[in-house]
């Protein structure tokens, strides 16, 4: 029985709206664009957010990255020639972390050097990364062919290397790199493995990944055991710049990556790391990067971004809603006589409210559905032409639909109320 009623109300509503097709369509457009913009904006925002978060997640959410940076006074003191600058992270730092901070799972000390790699007649600029065998456990780098470095390589300071996949074509051409020897700074290293980065998103845009900045954005990496690097390259590097002249730098480690057991320890451990470093480093020659914090910050920024976009979209929905209200007011006064007739024939105020409210709801729900279709199509266009990542979440569809029905309810209520409270006698006399 109630189903019959609903069916009849809906049918009656459609009939009335159908009588003014053009008007109904134009009215609905406001909602269509409102809903479409909500969905499109949320999709674009969500896509950008997901992108940023994935990139940061590549750094490892349980990681704390401590990096060597040149202390500020060194950079601003030109004119000194051939001075030995000693700064940066040391093996002692790594050991101190290991010994005095609880809850640390892995510590990865890294050396990073810009070098040229030679193979036959080819020469390719590379970033040499002196690292430890457990480097893959804190990064998305995985051996794809062959193997990664081993403890034995470490202990015996073997001249072996693992080449990043991106380098293979430039350096080896069509040769199979495994088992080949690569010359770097006068020494030969045997290629034992080819490494790949697990997720594409991060490897495509290295500029957003702070851990990679030191080596230059476009350089491929060659992993060599840390001990071997220490042996072959030493710790002193000569830098020749036009302004500074020739400077000697002694840096033991470029970075130390600390991984903690669980995510809730990250911030506490960061404080411990900072405290320890503050004790042993007089110069401000390090920075601490916490991907988790970056992620949170990115999320906060994203939230504001989404809020702003959402508000703009919501305003357009509001405008659409006001448009609908306007039209419904016109409809109500146009149909005053019909209201009077229905009241005389036994309609209660409630029946009139339901009748007009259902018309408004039909308009907005229809607008909502069309808006969802249009709004879902826009992100595809943006992804295709704008080369941006977009993501339509089911939540945004539900939200948009909910908002459009809420708009219908809110902006339909007043005209319906006006209709119901008309004096039946007056309405019947209305021309």
């Amino acid at each position, binding site marked *: 029985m109630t189903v019959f009623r609903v069916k009849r109300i809906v049918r009656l509503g459609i009939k009335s709206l159908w009588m003014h097709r053009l008007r109904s369509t134009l009215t609905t457009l406001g909602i269509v664009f409102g809903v479409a913009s909500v969905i499109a904006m949320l999709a674009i925002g969500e896509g950008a957010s997901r992108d940023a978060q994935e990139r940061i997640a590549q750094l490892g959410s349980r990681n704390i990255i401590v990096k060597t940076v040149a202390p500020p006074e060194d950079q601003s003191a030109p004119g000194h020639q051939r001075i030995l600058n000693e700064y940066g992270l040391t093996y002692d730092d790594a050991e101190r972390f290991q010994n005095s901070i609880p809850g640390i799972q892995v510590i990865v000390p890294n050396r990073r050097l810009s070098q040229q790699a030679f193979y036959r007649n080819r020469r390719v600029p590379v970033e040499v990364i002196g690292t430890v065998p457990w480097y893959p456990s804190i990064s998305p780098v995985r051996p794809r062919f062959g193997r990664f470095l081993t403890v034995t390589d470490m202990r015996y300071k073997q001249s072996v290397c693992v080449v990043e996949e991106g380098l293979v074509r430039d350096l080896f051409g069509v040769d199979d790199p495994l088992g080949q020897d690569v010359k770097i700074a006068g020494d030969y290293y045997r290629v034992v493995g080819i490494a790949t980065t697990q997720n594409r998103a991060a490897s495509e845009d290295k500029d957003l990944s702070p851990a990679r900045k030191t080596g230059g954005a476009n350089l491929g990496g060659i992993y060599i055991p840390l001990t071997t690097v220490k042996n072959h390259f030493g710790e002193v590097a000569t830098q020749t710049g036009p302004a500074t002249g020739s400077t000697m730098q002694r840096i033991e480690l470029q970075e130390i990556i600390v991984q903690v057991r669980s995510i809730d320890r990250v911030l506490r451990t960061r404080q411990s790391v900072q405290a320890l470093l503050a004790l042993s480093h007089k110069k401000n020659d390090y920075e601490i990067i916490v991907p988790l914090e970056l992620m949170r910050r990115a999320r906060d920024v994203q939230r504001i971004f989404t809020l702003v976009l959402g508000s703009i979209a919501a305003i357009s929905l509001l405008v659409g809603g006001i448009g609908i209200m306007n039209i419904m007011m016109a409809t109500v006064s146009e149909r005053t006589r019909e209201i009077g007739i229905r*009241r005389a024939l*036994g309609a*209660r105020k409630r029946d009139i409210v339901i009748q007009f409210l259902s018309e408004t709801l039909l308009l907005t729900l229809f607008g909502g559905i069309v808006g969802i279709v249009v709004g879902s199509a826009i992100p595809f266009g943006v992804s295709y032409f704008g080369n941006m990542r977009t993501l339509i979440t089911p939540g945004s569809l539900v939200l948009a639909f909910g908002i459009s029905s809420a708009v219908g309810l809110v902006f339909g209520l007043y005209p319906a109320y006006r209709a119901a409270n008309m004096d039946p006698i007056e309405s019947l006399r209305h021309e």
Partner: protein
Amino acid sequence: MMRSTQTSNSAMDAAILVMKDLCKTYHLGSVELRVLKDINLAIHCGEYVAIMGPSGSGKSTLLNMIGCLDRPTAGDYLLGGRSVASLEDDQLSLIRGARIGFVFQSYNLISQLNVVENIAIPMYYQGFSEQASVQRARGLATLVGLGERLNHRPTELSGGQQQRVAIARAIANDPLIILADEPTGNLDSASGTEILAILDRLHEEGKTLIVVTHDEHVATKAKRIIRLFDGRIDRDEFNER
């Protein structure tokens, strides 16, 4: 023959419609407009009553009062033995829908609905199922001679046909009273005669009819004529043809 305006209590019990010292006053700013003054009236089941009177005599207000579209300022109004003078709006709607059938001068059909749907409106508001009300609406349409035009819109019908639809709609819920306000006012004489014939037939079937009219010719069809003047019942007499 003059009929006493004071009706005995026993007569009131049998009456379908009783008005006791009913007054209606409108306030237009500071001016008080007494439209109906001490109306005492009893109408019995199966009566055919015409209400006549010059413009401004309170005809329309009395009609609205009988039709439960308006509430009296003072006095009592019993419809079918039940006082309706102080009922809530929803209850008035219910009474209008179930106990009163309206026939208007300008037909007042709803233009986006067809004949059957128009007839079914009062049944819809009384909660009949769609199937039942459509079936009954078809029967009623046939009864008033519109069996061939069930799916026509009001705009596709002549005035006489539209008024027949309105009559079918008025009797849809089998009301106590059929209230007709100048039912032939907008019609040519042929169509008017048809409509009066239908009303006559309804009266013969035992329906209670109250017709408001200017037209003496229409009034002569009625068995009792109530004449209003200046908000009071001036004369209330049986019509002897």
